[in-house]
């Protein structure tokens, strides 16, 4: 009887097969049975699924971005025709602000809803997975360690969802409103307040991720010892790629890398693949929108739309904040699963 057979029997005995994996997780694997995949193969299929869906994400992101760019072009053209002091002309940037808000914010608000639901799905799924892993961990003779990790994961996960619901999403909406008002009024009167709100959201997210990672590290739950070069490379990629909270996530990724060598049992593999699949859809949807809007915001001054370009960049920042929330939830769930299977 080999190692994999033992883990497979554990998997069945612990009731892991009864864990409900969300439908969106299966779709990305092209119909393959997620329960029988190895980690490498799973990530390969996930990569293929992402590649096939990427065109669709860009198409969805293009529509609000093109609308915003056209508003900027129109207002820029009008501003070149009339002198700045013309009273009637001062209304045009206000109308342009409203048009961009209508075009972009409808999309943003819809994604806040789906992002919130992705965070909840991650939390619900990871809780049922962690319960099974905790049972498995207790069965192999580490009941104390299993329950400590399970408790830590549940507490921090619940804290994150509560903070996202009650603090971060309202703060995000306030940030959007302040940015829109600032663009409508002009003169950068509310720019300081918008920056403060963004910094506050980023700081809270960073504190939660960092607190969770420190807790696991200090309590000796997760060992270090991963290759320094791998850690450095991964941290550089993450902090440069993920906006807003990339730095904090990069620091937490060291914990994940250190423990991936311990991923060997079937339940853990299924769990990690499912978590990755649940998170990646929302991640890509938001990430592509963030990139596209940032590009439009960057080229807007060339079309004469300085004020409106700044609004577009700020709205891109809102997508970035939402992306940071989902990335934080996914990483916390992943760290919790890896910490559990390292027993």
């Amino acid at each position, binding site marked *: 009887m080999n190692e994999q057979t033992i883990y497979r029997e554990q998997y069945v005995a612990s009731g892991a097969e009864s864990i409900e994996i969300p439908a969106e997780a299966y779709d990305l694997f092209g119909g393959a049975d997620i329960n029988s995949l190895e980690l490498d193969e799973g990530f390969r299929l996930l990569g293929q699924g992402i590649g096939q869906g990427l065109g669709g994400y860009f198409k969805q992101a293009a529509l609000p971005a093109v609308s915003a760019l056209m*508003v900027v072009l129109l207002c820029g053209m009008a501003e070149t025709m009339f002198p700045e002091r013309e009273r*009637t002309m*001062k*209304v*045009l940037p206000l109308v342009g602000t409203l048009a961009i808000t209508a*075009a972009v914010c409808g999309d943003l608000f819809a994604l806040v809803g789906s992002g919130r639901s992705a965070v909840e799905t991650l939390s619900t799924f990871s809780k049922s997975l962690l319960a099974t892993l905790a049972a498995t961990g207790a069965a192999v003779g580490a009941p104390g360690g299993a329950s400590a990790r399970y408790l830590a994961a549940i507490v921090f996960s619940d804290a994150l969802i509560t903070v996202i619901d009650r603090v971060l999403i309202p703060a995000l909406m306030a940030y959007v409103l302040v940015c829109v008002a600032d663009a409508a009024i002009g003169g950068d009167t509310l720019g300081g307040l918008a920056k403060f709100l963004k910094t506050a959201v980023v700081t809270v997210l960073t504190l939660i991720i960092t607190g969770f990672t420190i807790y696991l590290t200090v309590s000796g739950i997760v060992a270090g010892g991963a290759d320094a070069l791998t850690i450095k490379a991964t941290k550089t990629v993450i902090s440069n790629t993920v906006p807003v909270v990339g730095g904090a996530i990069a620091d937490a990724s060291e914990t994940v890398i250190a423990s991936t060598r311990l991923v060997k049992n079937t339940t853990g593999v299924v769990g990690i693949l499912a978590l990755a699949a649940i998170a990646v859809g929302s991640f890509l949807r938001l990430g592509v929108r963030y990139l596209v809007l940032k590009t439009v915001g960057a080229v807007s001054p060339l079309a004469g739309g300085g004020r409106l370009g700044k609004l577009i960049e700020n709205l891109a920042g809102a997508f970035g904040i939402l992306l940071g929330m989902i990335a934080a939830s996914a990483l916390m769930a992943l760290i919790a699963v890896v910490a559990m299977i390292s027993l």
Partner: protein
Amino acid sequence: MDTVIKVAAAGLLAAVAALVLKKDNPAGAFLIALAAGVVIVGAAMGFISPIADFLRSLADAAGVAPEHFSALYKALAISIVSYVAAESCKDAGEKAVGGYIELAGGAAALYVSLPLMSDVFSLLRSFLR
């Protein structure tokens, strides 16, 4: 290029004619300046219309909702009309009337953007609920 040269020439001629008439017939001078303004802006519309059509076709191709732009087009049209009228009045020495026209133009531009404001407000309200 030809149109710009013709517009410039017409503008200069009208300015000279108005200057000559101003001393003896200020009303006539004003009418000449106004007529020149209308003709020149009309000629400028010949440049603006194809640009607006191009933007409209771009919007159709991208699948952009037309209601986001109709308020903007209307506000731009109001700006052009009120600008020509206000500047003409200021030229005729009626700065106050020019100011009233600017005020009316601004109010009209805000009025046509009401549907857009209403859409944005509904969007925010539906999310906050």
